[in-house]
């Protein structure tokens, strides 16, 4: 039973990550700096919503198969049963969300947005590559599909880190400022959540690969990693920034205002 609870929590963690970063990226839709890039970031948002749906659907399936005795939320509240992708996305509150803090911080400017995506998607690419070996074939299948998308997200965002880092004086300053602002949220990427117990996972290896990649890209762009930083953490366990409440208030408003409706 403990294993099942862990897998469900881990699936919710992955789903929440995808949903919240998808939400943030979707805020750019219609407001991007270049039309082609507006399309690109909207498409990336769409990829993430798709990943969120895959993970929520699978989590819902497992919850509904094993509803008794699984207290699956951090705050101890029971999940609405039967669970669906929408009940999981729309009817849980801040303390029950397990997304990483880096996904929920505001977009900031184009440098912040593309840097955050680079740091996150490179981490996810490594993580999902490990998930290909997951004993649950559905998790492995979702990882396989997501890797195709994440590879593009990494490439796209990496290109922007290079372009802005090595573009104009202003863009370099802005990208370096983004690094200073976001770096504190990268430490959490490598803290293995207690419920991430699948045998295929090796967070230390993810961190090594991630460090190598990020260092190389920063070096090429002439950017540097801040020397001293504090690690902001807790998202994976439901301890969030104040920003998440506003995201959920906006995202969940219709489901909350008109309960039990079909849309």
């Amino acid at each position, binding site marked *: 039973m403990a294993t099942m609870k862990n897998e469900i929590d881990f699936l919710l963690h992955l789903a929440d990550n995808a949903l919240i970063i998808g939400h943030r990226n979707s805020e750019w839709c219609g407001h991007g700096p270049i*039309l082609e890039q507006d*399309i690109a970031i909207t498409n990336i948002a769409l990829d993430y919503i798709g990943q969120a749906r895959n993970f929520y659907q699978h989590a819902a399936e497992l919850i509904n198969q094993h509803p008794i005795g699984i207290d699956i939320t951090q705050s101890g509240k029971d999940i609405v049963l039967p669970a669906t992708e929408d009940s999981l996305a729309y009817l849980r509150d801040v303390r029950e969300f397990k997304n990483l803090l880096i996904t929920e911080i505001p977009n900031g400017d184009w440098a912040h947005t593309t840097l955050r995506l680079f740091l996150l998607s490179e981490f996810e690419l490594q993580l999902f590559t490990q998930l290909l070996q997951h004993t649950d074939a559905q998790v492995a299948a979702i990882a396989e599909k997501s890797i195709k998308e994440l590879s593009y997200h990494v490439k796209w965002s990496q290109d922007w880190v290079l*372009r*802005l880092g090595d*573009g104009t004086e202003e863009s370099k300053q802005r990208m370096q400022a983004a690094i200073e602002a976001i770096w504190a949220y990268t430490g959490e990427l490598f803290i293995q959540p207690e419920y991430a117990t699948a045998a295929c996972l090796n967070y230390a290896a993810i961190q090594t690969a991630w460090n190598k990649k990020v260092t190389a890209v920063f070096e090429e762009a002439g950017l540097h990693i801040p020397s001293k930083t504090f690690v902001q953490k807790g998202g994976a366990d439901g301890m969030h920034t104040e920003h998440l409440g506003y995201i959920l208030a906006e*995202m969940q408003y*219709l*489901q909350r205002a008109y309960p039990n409706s079909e849309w």
Partner: protein
Amino acid sequence: MEQAFEQIFQDKIDREVRIEPKDWMPEKYRQTLIRQISQHAHSEIIGMLPEGNWITRAPSLRRKAILLAKVQDEAGHGLYLYSAAETLGISRDQMYDQLHTGKAKYSSIFNYPTLSWADMGVVGWLVDGAAIMNQVPLCRSSFGPYARAMVRVCKEESFHQRQGFEILYVLSKGTEAQRRMAQDAINRWWWPSLMMFGPKDDESPNSIQSMKWKIKRFSNDELRQKFVDVCAEQVKVLGFTLPDKDLKWNEERGHYDFGPINWDEFWQVVQGNGPCNKERLDARKKAWEEGAWVRDAALAYANKKAKQKQAAA
């Protein structure tokens, strides 16, 4: 000489031969097309805003995904329409400038606010529906790049219209509150949708020449009537009503009669006094201005890379 060219040009048009960018064309034809295509492109881009307004609040993950894809489609339409206009010798930046300074217009419908989720249904059903009525004939426009762009635009728009209708259909089967939400949205969008076909034929200054050049195939009033006839039937499937007490089938004409359009409201919105004119334009200007440093950096980087490549060669 000019006259001979003009003769050949009109002859091609009459024979339904497409005009291509490098072909000779009257300056007025070029200018009319630039005005029309860029206005159309701007409408797609401004049109992203009222729908983008609901992406973060979409009521289910499925609806969110569909809405994202739809708004992304609109951006794509803007992109190929700008490209089609560029073949006529104007740059995208010049067109943006015309939009931002108010010199170029966009469809007035996007100056109305999207106040509820049902608006996403109605925008798809009525606004995209009216757009399709206008646009299907443009797939046979005499100017090749425009006609070809419109083929793809129309395919996607027809999908958009169906998804809008489906949103309303689900609401129509929903709770009383959802039905009220949907009826209210229909009430707000119906008349502005009818205005999308433009002024009455006898008050439409550019129409006659555009018909002769086959940029336009049907008159504003013809298309508007067709739209009313279709919607008057579709609304019955939803079990809602259109907010027009004069709407009535006319056996003799074989069409629905409908009430008078408030043209004063139409011209007010065209002139900038609609509920959201300022917000829409401000949002686009803000995106453009705040994106300037990004575009500068991208250009500087591309130049740097090109130089490095040259030096290495």
